[in-house]
């Protein structure tokens, strides 16, 4: 039995009751993605977090032990917990995002294990788009590599508020402080070019469990937080935009029964901001105004709702509203325009994006046709420089483009309002999602 495996056994045997200390009333949710290059140990890190928080159940562990033995590498391969597809297990790689769940007393964690291979970057973007935090793994033996740059660019572009760089496999570089500092410095240089709001760099060994849940005895020079401690305490509540009131209408509830004859409720989700009873609102794109007569949360009346709550809004006057419309509070208005500039990550492996191409743009609950007017530049992943005179975009290219929509849409800048600044492009013949757009205003 290897030493890592020994330690795992020990942790597991001290397993006590699993969820007895959960505080259902005060728990919140943190969604985080693990990114990095192939073999940097992303799946192992998640496996380790699950293992050390006692979230792997006896039969699941047994199955992983059995599979690890079949593969004959002697050690428990924690990556087998997340590689859920047959072809992933066969090739020993992660192809698509895997979601895993664990809990500590005050937080529910949704972990999103993203693939490291370049050709699966679009799956990484899928996972990252909903994350509050990204863990970017770096192999201490390799330092910053191209995928580190690519994933850092994508996470910052997607506006993920918190980034943790896990310098992994410290056990394989003799737990050297110098190596760690060198990599940290190199990463800091890279981060300076990007919009990273909150950056944390931690030396770890996911395999041996150093600085994941428990402080590493092998790295006394590191006095900062462990990975789990940081994940448990990072504040995500304040990352929400509660300033700009936006509500996109998903569905109109009209019961048309005798007692609810005139009931007309606009069902949707508060994308950002706060709505209160009596607020004056504007409906986009029609720009009609009205006042909020009533707010209901699943049939119960409330005084106010805030993002990201689902709710139903009733207005004082008869306004023509249907799915796809945006109800906005007065104050900061969204931009209403047919011209949209956006950063795009291109995701189609079959067709390129070319100037003049037409797509369906989905923004909020609205869909509208659009055409590509121009490509301003493409970003070079290796140094973040902008390359001009670009004719087309290939799979995984990141670029800035200009779109013209068939009808005006009401949007905000993605960087200040993730919910109302995000859009996707859909191919009109295959119906596949081909682009992730972050709108500028």
């Amino acid at each position, binding site marked *: 039995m290897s030493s890592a495996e020994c330690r795992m056994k020990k942790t597991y045997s001290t*397993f006590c009751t*699993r*969820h007895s200390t*959960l505080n*259902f009333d*005060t728990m*919140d949710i943190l969604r985080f993605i693990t990114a990095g290059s192939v073999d940097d140990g992303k799946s192992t890190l998640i496996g380790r977090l699950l293992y050390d928080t006692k979230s792997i*159940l*006896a*039969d*699941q562990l047994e*199955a992983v032990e059995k599979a690890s033995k079949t593969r004959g590498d002697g050690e428990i391969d924690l990556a087998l917990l*997340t*590689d*859920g*597809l047959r072809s992933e297990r066969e090739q020993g790689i992660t192809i*698509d995002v*895997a979601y895993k*769940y664990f*809990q500590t007393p005050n937080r529910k964690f949704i972990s999103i294990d993203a693939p490291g291979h370049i050709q699966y970057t679009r*799956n990484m973007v*899928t996972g990252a788009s*909903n994350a509050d935090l990204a863990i970017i793994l770096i192999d201490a033996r390799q330092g910053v590599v191209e995928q580190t740059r690519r994933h850092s660019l994508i996470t910052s572009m997607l506006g993920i508020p918190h980034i943790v760089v896990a310098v992994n496999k410290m056990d394989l570089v003799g737990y050297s402080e110098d190596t760690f500092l060198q990599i940290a410095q190199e990463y800091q240089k890279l981060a300076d*070019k*990007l*919009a990273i*709001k909150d950056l944390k760099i931690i030396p770890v060994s996911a395999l041996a469990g150093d600085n994941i849940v428990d402080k590493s005895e092998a790295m006394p020079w590191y006095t900062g937080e462990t990975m789990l401690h940081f994940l448990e305490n990072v504040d995500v*509540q*304040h*990352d*929400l935009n*509660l*300033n700009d009131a936006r509500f996109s209408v*998903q*569905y109109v*509830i009209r019961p048309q029964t005798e007692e*609810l004859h005139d*009931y007309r409720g606009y*069902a949707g989700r508060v994308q950002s901001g706060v709505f209160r009873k009596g607020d004056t609102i504007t409906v986009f794109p029609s720009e009609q105004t009205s006042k909020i007569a009533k707010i209901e949360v*699943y049939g119960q009346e409330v*005084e*106010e709702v805030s993002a*990201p*709550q*689902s709710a139903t809004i009733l207005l004082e006057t008869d306004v023509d509203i249907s799915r796809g419309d945006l109800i906005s509070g007065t104050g900061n208005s969204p931009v209403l325009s047919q011209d949209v500039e956006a*950063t795009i990550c291109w995701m189609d492996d079959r067709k390129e994006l070319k100037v003049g191409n037409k797509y369906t743009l*989905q*923004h*909020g*609950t609205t869909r509208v046709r659009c055409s590509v007017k121009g490509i301003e530049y493409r970003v070079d992943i290796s140094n*973040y*420089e*902008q*390359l*001009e005179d670009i004719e087309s975009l290939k799979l995984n290219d990141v670029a800035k483009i200009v779109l013209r929509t068939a009808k005006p849409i009401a949007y905000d800048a993605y960087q200040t309002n993730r*919910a109302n600044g995000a859009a*996707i492009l*859909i191919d009109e013949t295959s119906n*596949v*999602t081909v682009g992730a757009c972050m709108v500028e205003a």
Partner: protein
Amino acid sequence: MKVKKSVGYTPDNQALFDLNVNYPIQTRYIMSNIQSLSSDAQRQDYLDQLESEAIYIMREVAGQFERPALLFSGGKDSITLVRLAQKAFAPGKIPFPLVHIDTGHNFPEATQYRDWMANEVGAKLIVRQVEDTIKAKGLKEPTGKNASRNWLQTFTLLDTIEEFEFDACIGGARRDEEKARAKERIFSFRDEFGQWDPKRQRPELWNLFNGKISKGENVRCFPISNWTELDVWAYIEREKIPLPSIYFSHQREMILRDGNLLANADFIYKDDSDVIVNKTVRFRTVGDMTCTAAVESEASTIEQVVAEIKATRISERGETRIDDQQTEAAMEDRKKGGYF
């Protein structure tokens, strides 16, 4: 190809990544705003957040598709879906039918509950029998020990989708259930043969679900993808949702087989190695009687059940689903073939 200046270095560069320069202010004004919120909007706890997300997904299904259906088996996950659908469209009625693919091997308690619940919420209930598909199509039914109609359900489901031209089916699958499910999108595209292609899933970004399809194709939608077994139980407890009696402790005649306890029924094949015993049990999941194992338990209230689930060391599927214990890729293979 010429190179423009590098991103973010110059203050006059209006490029995409320079916003951070004065960005952190955002967090501050948000903070001050939060304190001015009154108590009911101040903070959604984690169950509120999960509920809110699931309701958003329900409404997207109703908004994007012409003929959706909710797959309802009378099990706790689909019962949770029905509650979420009620809330999503309140005070209106649930705007789609409940559909059950009945293998004929269901627990009678679950089918009774199914009928009662559909009536209670005023939803249309569509039931299609696997037995009828077997006869009509001349399907070969698995026989012998541990034979199950689980896989045959797929045929009936696909026929039902065709019969009613359903373009979306809402299901109660959760990603924590099984490792192939952990990989699936919330809006999961199926081709005209009902097949899932795990290697070519559509990107799914933010909360912008893409339900665009061509005729004959459909989408499986999973509003409680991000819930765990414990979340479902905690929600049922909080919402005080009634459940079929088999979820609580009761006396039952059981077949003891390979360490599993199966409910005894005439249609279950038995041989000499099977032992019939009387046990006090409850079921942690509700599937077919042929492939659902019970746990020995005295838990007779929802609080007691939740306490047991909190303390368990065995996963839901590992403990109760005999069909998934057979091969490592059992679920993935069923899903590729059109299973939910």
